[in-house]
């Protein structure tokens, strides 16, 4: 059973556009939701994370929107750039466990 479901599998966005990636979870015990960015040949790098006591968190061009009642959260990349082209993973964990459940990933391609 997949704990975190991610969509879309792939995404093509024009430079300057907004990229949106969605994730949904089932386990209401999850209370920490990070997003990771992974380039080919590299390990995942933490982008931004949110806890369910807030509905939105913004860091630069990256924003997480969180809907606790719907058990959904999303990553918005504003003013997308070709350098943002990578695979993005959402994840979830329960406090003090540090065991992360990852989504299946979204391959983002930002066209110049």
């Amino acid at each position: 059973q997949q704990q975190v479901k991610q969509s879309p599998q792939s995404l093509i966005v024009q430079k300057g556009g907004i990229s949106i990636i969605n994730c949904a979870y089932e386990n209401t015990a999850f209370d920490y939701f990070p997003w990771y960015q992974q380039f080919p040949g590299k390990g995942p790098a933490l982008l931004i994370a949110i806890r369910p006591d807030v509905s939105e968190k913004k860091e630069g061009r990256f924003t997480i929107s969180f809907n606790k009642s719907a058990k959904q959260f999303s990553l918005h990349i504003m003013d997308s750039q070709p350098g943002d082209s990578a695979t993005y993973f959402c994840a979830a964990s329960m406090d003090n466990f540090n065991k992360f459940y990852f989504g299946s990933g979204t391959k983002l391609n930002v066209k110049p």
Partner: protein
Amino acid sequence: DAGVTQSPTHLIKTRGQQVTLRCSPKSGHDTVSWYQQALGQGPQFIFQYYEEEERQRGNFPDRFSGHQFPNYSSELNVNALLLGDSALYLCASSLKVGGNQPQHFGDGTRLSIL
């Protein structure tokens, strides 16, 4: 400040063999987690080590075992290798205190089984 380092970067083995992968955590971190990432998939949690003991384990068979040393570095051992074990193996380190500390990943070991 060195991040998480893993060795080797690539490894080729045949079915039935055994393999050991190594990880040095980010400076100051005391917890090491191992993940398996199949091609085109998200990382899957194998197990976590803290204070030289396995603290949590994912849905992986006993062929997968590990160890953590007093300097917090860690090894992942896989016995009786199967073709399906071909994957990128990622090590992540974090600080246990406080819970849900950010995990820092290494660049992984690419394991290919022939």
